[in-house]
């Protein structure tokens, strides 16, 4: 019997979503990012098209990190006191497709920055770079709800992505995004049913499906990467199978998850069995990113510029096989 290539007949494709708005669309971005639209499992060109390449956001914190290992700090130390300069470096030198700004200063356990301060930071970053933005709160629900309307307003019309709506806390962020023309991130704790539920909740509030990015939380290599891998894979399968509430493009947090793992930063003296430290963190971040790409993620939030270069090259290689 001759061999025939087994192809799946998917009934749907991943939702296509554009982040950022140029002047023509009422914003000030000089470039936008479009993701999604995949017609197959990741990079299976014999089966369907991958119309848009996965993109890489570099993360910018709005105050200097205190515990970054040297391998990472050496690339950012000169700019980390100024989020605008940091963002600029990430775009100009490291080629970020977009900036993921995390408002850690708002944390009530830390600096407890005001909504005005956060909004001012956003304005400065928007002025410093032309790429689209993802804006993430500090993780404290009450505080995030207090600052998010102001942050959203500061970026009105720019089609930024606001993070994150959860099952228990979605109304403020959703209302802000609707008012100012932004997208939101739907976050769920490695649970596809909760992910779907969040999609239902925010679309019930009037959020359109092409203004949503899915985020299933993440684990670094060796620390739960397989849970995220399988949830992302299942979500892609559900999307191709026609589940409209799971059809949006997916985001994965790579940098912070990979670098908080000891394998990424512990010295060879402390852990001789792990080998030389020099490249270990970069390897850890690149490996973590690779899994999410192959599972079906569209937007990777990364930290180390060298890991970014290697992952970008891998994306090129994966897309190289596609007929144009």
């Amino acid at each position: 019997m001759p061999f025939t290539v087994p192809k799946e007949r998917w009934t749907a494709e991943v939702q296509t979503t554009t982040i950022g708005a140029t002047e023509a669309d009422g914003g000030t971005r000089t470039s936008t990012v479009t993701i999604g639209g995949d017609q197959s499992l990741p990079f299976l060109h014999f089966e369907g098209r991958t119309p848009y390449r996965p993109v890489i956001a570099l993360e910018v914190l709005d105050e200097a990190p205190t515990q970054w290992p040297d391998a990472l700090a050496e690339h950012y130390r000169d700019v980390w006191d100024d989020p605008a300069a940091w963002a600029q470096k990430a775009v100009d030198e490291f080629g970020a497709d977009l900036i993921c700004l995390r408002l850690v200063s708002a944390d009530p356990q830390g600096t407890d920055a005001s909504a005005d301060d956060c909004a001012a930071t956003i304005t400065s970053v928007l002025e410093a770079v032309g790429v689209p933005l993802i804006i993430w709160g500090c993780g404290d629900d009450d505080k995030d709800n207090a600052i998010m309307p102001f942050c959203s307003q500061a970026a009105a019309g720019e089609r930024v992505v606001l993070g994150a709506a959860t099952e228990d806390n979605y109304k403020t962020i959703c209302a802000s995004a609707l008012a100012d023309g932004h997208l939101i991130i739907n976050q769920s704790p490695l649970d596809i049913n909760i992910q779907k539920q969040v999609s239902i909740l925010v679309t019930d509030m009037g959020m359109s499906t092409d203004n949503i990015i899915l985020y299933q939380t993440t684990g670094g290599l060796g620390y739960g990467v397989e849970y995220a891998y399988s949830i992302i894979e299942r979500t892609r399968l559900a999307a191709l199978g026609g589940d409209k509430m799971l059809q949006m493009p997916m985001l994965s947090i790579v940098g912070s998850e990979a670098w908080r793992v000891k394998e990424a930063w512990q010295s060879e003296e402390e852990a001789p069995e792990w080998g030389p430290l020099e490249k270990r963190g970069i390897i850890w971040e690149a490996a973590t990113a690779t899994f999410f790409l192959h599972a079906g993620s569209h937007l990777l939030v990364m930290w180390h510029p060298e890991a970014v270069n290697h992952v970008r090259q891998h994306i090129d290689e994966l897309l190289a096989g596609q007929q144009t």
Partner: protein
Amino acid sequence: MALTAMDIYKNLPKTNCGECGVPTCLAFAMKLAQGQASLDQCPHVTEEAAAALAGSSAPPMKTVTIGTGDHALEIGGQTVLFRHEETFYHPCGVAIQVNTSLPEGEMTERIKTACEMEFDRVGMTFGLDLIALYDDDGRLPEVAAVAAEESSLPLMLMSDDPQAMRGALEVCAEGRPLICAATADNFEEMTSLAKEFECPLVIRGEGMEQLYELSEKAIEAGIEDLVLDSSAREPSAVLQDQTIIRRAAIKEKAEPFGFPTIGFVGGDDEVDKVISGCELIAKYPGIVVTDLITRDALLALVTARLNIYTDPQKPIQVESGAYEVGEPDASSPVLITTNFSLTYYTVEADASAGNLDAWIVVVDTEGTSVLTAWAAEDFTAETIAKTIKECGIEEKVEKKIAVLPGGVAVLSGDLEQESGWNVVVGPRESAGIPTFFKTEYEQRIADFN
């Protein structure tokens, strides 16, 4: 061609006796169709029906053994395309490439390094699996003799020259090495070598169609242990070919593709090679060949393999009980956590990183993390108190003070009542343990004195 569940059902007794472990014959037929059950689980199936179903009830992918004894490597035997559907069986073997042109000292050093390389993770030890001798100067027979002496791991012999292969097999065939590879050009010679020496054989086709034909021919020639290589080496082509072969095997039950595959790590530097290795570990080869030899890179690959091949239905667990970190004594703190291995080993590692001497009391939560177990009511004041009573910690320490994970602070009152211990709420994240003990712990327990 794969039979559908209905085709299979027609051949079953249709008595719904349940003796196969599935309530109805139809449900059993569905499991058979998915390769998740085997026909011999049905005690009442007739011989005729068994013959009719033989093809479809055979496992969709053969398990192939390379090497002998303690270090024998089993690969293949997969039943699904996605790990969440069931699990991936037989973690892929990592083969370390050794070129025959290396100076002998360097070569034996490399083999030794690969054989001895081990990593401890989640309470288990993981190493590498094969030494792949790549014949780049025609010295394979000579080098195979040395390697067979030096290597505790099984060998893989890489040469397209049947003469060299015969020479190598003559000195190392009893270790059941993997022959790599039979191609369209050397097919007759290589397949006869595989038969003569009873060794598993890699079939390399130029593209999928040729691979399919060669594999068919090898099966006809009576060779049972095959490993497949489509010749793809670029990441995009590799991903597609690996997927097509796996899919054809699992979903179409295409016999010539019902074998494990082999993949070759590509890339220019260490980081690229790890990326390529991770792609291969995820999708889908049974053997991943690399020339990487440094611990940092191989740690990542071995960890990646452990993650992908972890059974998603059975999280790795540690036994419930009282564990030691450092050298604890009667005055050392007692940390409470769950038996999900990732949780336990993270706590253990963070406590060690903080140079603590401490006890860790592990509660059986069926392998779930602190918050998941709490939500599922497996990590409650009652289960924790019961573990404290039963694990013997009460005889080991003078002061009854337990440190509870910050995420379940709400349990502290009930736990004090249930156990009679004093409870201190620790950090939410395990990573906060060193700082917590450096700056807060003494002060917090002062009241209990």
